């Protein structure tokens, strides 16, 4: 254990940046500003996507299509999926927390390519607004977020083309971000900091960024081909012109299955940062945690065809993708057992960050179990494209990623603002989010098993009661954002001062002032080689300073 004592913190120098809140509306190259821009922008899109979810659940209160026109319903469900994935979860778990934390974790003063970083963020608001504006122009895309041809070729073209352009820009943003994270983690590490000494979130972001860089270009190529089919009447995927619709599915899922890991691997990393701090225990099994991330990356790239078990794939392919998919449960299981072992024997503070983290584990375990079930071809043949899949998917991305986003906000808010969030409001927020979420999505497993397909505005009347229960859960989830919003806004002004390190954490971002100065540290960055050395007697901690380096004189 080697921690160099950080220099005394001083008020942040804002000489190089616009002052105060205005800097969040500037083309800042400060990774902390960009991280918060990602977070706040993403949360705004979360509220918009949530409103769409509310509209969907309102339509489903009754078995008939009576709340909105049917084509509008399909537009709303397409936008809901696209907004939540491409504008909320991916940008926030990667862009927001990655930007804010990675430079601290590697001991850098900024990302490797600060201007590319700003470009990556500033692609998001315009493409998001463009996507949503398509609803008001000629109607948004209505072929689902998967945009399967021929439906996406035959529905009104304007909305679909805007959808493609928007997703292409967001994919570009992801790729820029991914390249930046890889370069920052591998090349900007403070001298003396080995890869196997990095905080776990760095490893998660390294794995995620590899997935982003390998798979997102495939999606881009696919969507460009799809747009040619729409506007230039080529026949890549159009069966009327000799195209093959199943090829699109292969190409689409080659990105979009890894996209699930792009959404959950960073969440795994964030939880691995939060739990040791509040359990006052080292992260259990650091090395296997690293290997399991890399195993998930490799396996994640070879499972895409499990989305196509009913599409007409050869039998050998079904067998291969069943086994490959089911085996992801092994590295994922390792992570979950390691978190349990991190909890075991700790001194756990039952605060909002821990509650959301444990809520995440509970939800994700259920989502993972249904995921292994869905990997089995015979099981999948019955429930594919039903509400069972909707439930499974939301247990993974909402019960997984979104719960972790909230846990992370409760954990890092004091660092970002210098003030504490209200714990009572936080626990209340957790309680109604957890109840609402499970009330909304748990019954959907039953709906799918018993015959309700997904993406329908009207359904068999026998499912009305269960749908109404699910909608009540959705309403609770909507209500649950109110105490959270009040908490983050009010606490920024009236919250108790946090001090530099209210959790007494050992990861590097806590060893500077709260909020951090523009260049992260006023002196040398500390060299933290064991970020989770909780429980080690104080006299064993070596506070001798490691020698500095001239590299850290500026952010460039």
């Amino acid at each position, binding site marked *: 254990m080697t921690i160099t004592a950080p220099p005394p913190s001083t008020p942040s120098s804002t000489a190089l940046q616009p002052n105060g809140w205005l800097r969040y509306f500037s083309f800042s190259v400060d990774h902390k500003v960009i991280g918060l821009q990602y977070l706040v922008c993403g949360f705004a899109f979360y509220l918009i996507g949530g409103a769409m979810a509310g509209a969907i659940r309102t339509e489903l209160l009754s078995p008939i299509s009576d709340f909105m026109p049917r084509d509008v319903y399909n537009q709303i469900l397409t936008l809901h999926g696209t907004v939540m994935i491409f504008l909320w979860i991916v940008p926030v778990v990667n862009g927001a927390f990655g930007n804010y934390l990675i430079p601290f974790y590697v001991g850098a003063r900024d990302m490797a390519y600060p201007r590319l970083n700003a470009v990556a963020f500033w692609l998001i608001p315009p493409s998001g607004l463009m996507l949503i504006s398509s609803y008001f122009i000629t109607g948004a895309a209505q072929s689902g977020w998967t945009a399967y041809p021929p439906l996406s070729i035959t529905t009104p073209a304007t909305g679909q083309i805007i959808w493609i352009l928007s997703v292409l820009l967001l994919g570009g943003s992801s790729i820029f971000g991914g390249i930046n994270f890889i370069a920052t983690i591998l090349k900007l590490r403070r001298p003396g900091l080995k890869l196997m000494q990095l905080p776990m979130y760095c490893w998660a972001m390294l794995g995620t960024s590899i997935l982003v860089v390998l798979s997102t270009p495939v999606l881009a190529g696919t969507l460009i081909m799809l747009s040619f089919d729409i506007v230039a009447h080529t026949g890549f995927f159009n069966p009327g012109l000799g195209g093959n619709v199943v090829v699109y599915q292969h190409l689409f899922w080659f990105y979009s299955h890894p996209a699930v890991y792009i959404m959950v691997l960073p969440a795994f990393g964030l939880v691995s940062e939060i739990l040791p701090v509040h359990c006052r225990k080292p992260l259990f099994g650091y090395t296997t945690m690293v290997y399991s991330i890399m195993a998930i990356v490799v396996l994640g790239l070879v499972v895409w065809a499990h989305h196509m078990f009913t599409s007409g794939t050869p039998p050998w392919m079904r067998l291969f993708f069943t086994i490959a998919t*089911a085996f992801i449960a092994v590295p994922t299981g390792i992570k979950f057992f390691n978190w349990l072992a991190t909890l075991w024997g700790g001194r756990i503070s039952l605060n909002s960050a821990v509650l959301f983290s444990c809520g995440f584990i509970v939800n994700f375990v259920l989502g993972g179990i249904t995921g292994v079930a869905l990997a089995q071809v015979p099981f999948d043949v019955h429930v594919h494209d039903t509400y069972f899949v909707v439930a499974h998917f939301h247990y993974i991305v909402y019960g997984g990623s979104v719960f972790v986003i909230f846990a992370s906000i409760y954990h890092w808010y004091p660092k970002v603002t210098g003030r504490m969030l209200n714990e009572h409001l936080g626990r209340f927020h957790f309680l109604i989010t957890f109840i609402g979420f499970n009330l909304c999505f748990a019954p959907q497993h039953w709906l799918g098993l018993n015959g309700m397909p997904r993406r329908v*505005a*009207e359904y068999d009347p026998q499912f009305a009661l269960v749908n109404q229960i699910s909608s009540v859960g959705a309403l609770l989830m909507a209500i649950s954002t109110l105490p959270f919003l009040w908490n983050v806004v009010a606490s920024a002004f009236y919250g108790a001062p946090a001090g530099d390190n209210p959790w007494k954490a050992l990861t590097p971002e806590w060893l500077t002032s709260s909020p951090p100065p523009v260049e992260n540290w006023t002196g040398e960055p500390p060299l933290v080689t064991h970020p989770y050395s909780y429980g080690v007697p104080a006299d064993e901690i070596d506070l001798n300073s490691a020698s500095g380096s001239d590299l850290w004189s500026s952010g460039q």
Partner: protein
Amino acid sequence: MPIPSAILTLVLGMLLVLGGLWIGQNVNLLPVDASVNAPIYDELFRVLFSIGTILFVGIVGLIVFSLVRFRRRPGQLGDGIALEGNLPLEVFWTAVPAIVVLFVGLYSYDIYERMGGMVPLGHGDHGAVSATANANASSADVRIWGGIGSTQDSQTATGAAIAPLPIEVTAMQFAFLFHYPDGDFISGEMHVPADRPVSLKMEAKDVIHAFWIPEFRLKQDVIPGQPTVLDFTPTRPGTYSIVCAELCGPYHGGMRSSVVVDSADDFETWLQANSKTTPSEA
């Protein structure tokens, strides 16, 4: 004298496994089974449900126990134990899930084979001639892909000598049409006789649809430009829903039809009543 923790763990583990098995066997979340392969599917479901219940209850139990047992009490300072790893433990919880997953994978492969899923497809014995061949493929080698492959008599002893009933399914926005080559007529509702294999040859006119009968535990996408097959043997007389499961446009939710499983005699009556003496142009 306190009970040793190893014994307590063993007892709790056994209770957990027995409870999970009981729940898997006794809690029914599925609709009635009405085809030969539905009970086979339900067998897999019960196994998955048992394993899932044991895992879920076990992990949630551990979390709740940890949060209560190891919570920080008021006035309690200092850290927990500095325990960073335990190699045998990690090998254990890597190996056990790997074995379980491998077992489940092989077991479901077996189930799938019993359902007819691993039978090589594209065999030419599907009653109807492949008249609507792909533009760029000769009718001789039209590639026919499907889900559950063939009734090839392996599923049921009673089906050994019975020729499958051919039905040609056409899916379009927003209806299924059923053409019966035996009587050369088209029906908007599917009628099938109980206990006789049925062979569907499915084509889509416009976009991708999916043909799903929840009570049969069967689903197969109906793909434009690429005929698919789906074979099954209904067992339980009754009327069940046919549901389109792939988003196919504004009225996707309304794209529902019915399958009526008749007794053999009733089906023959229905077939005769609808049959045309002259070929239909429809």
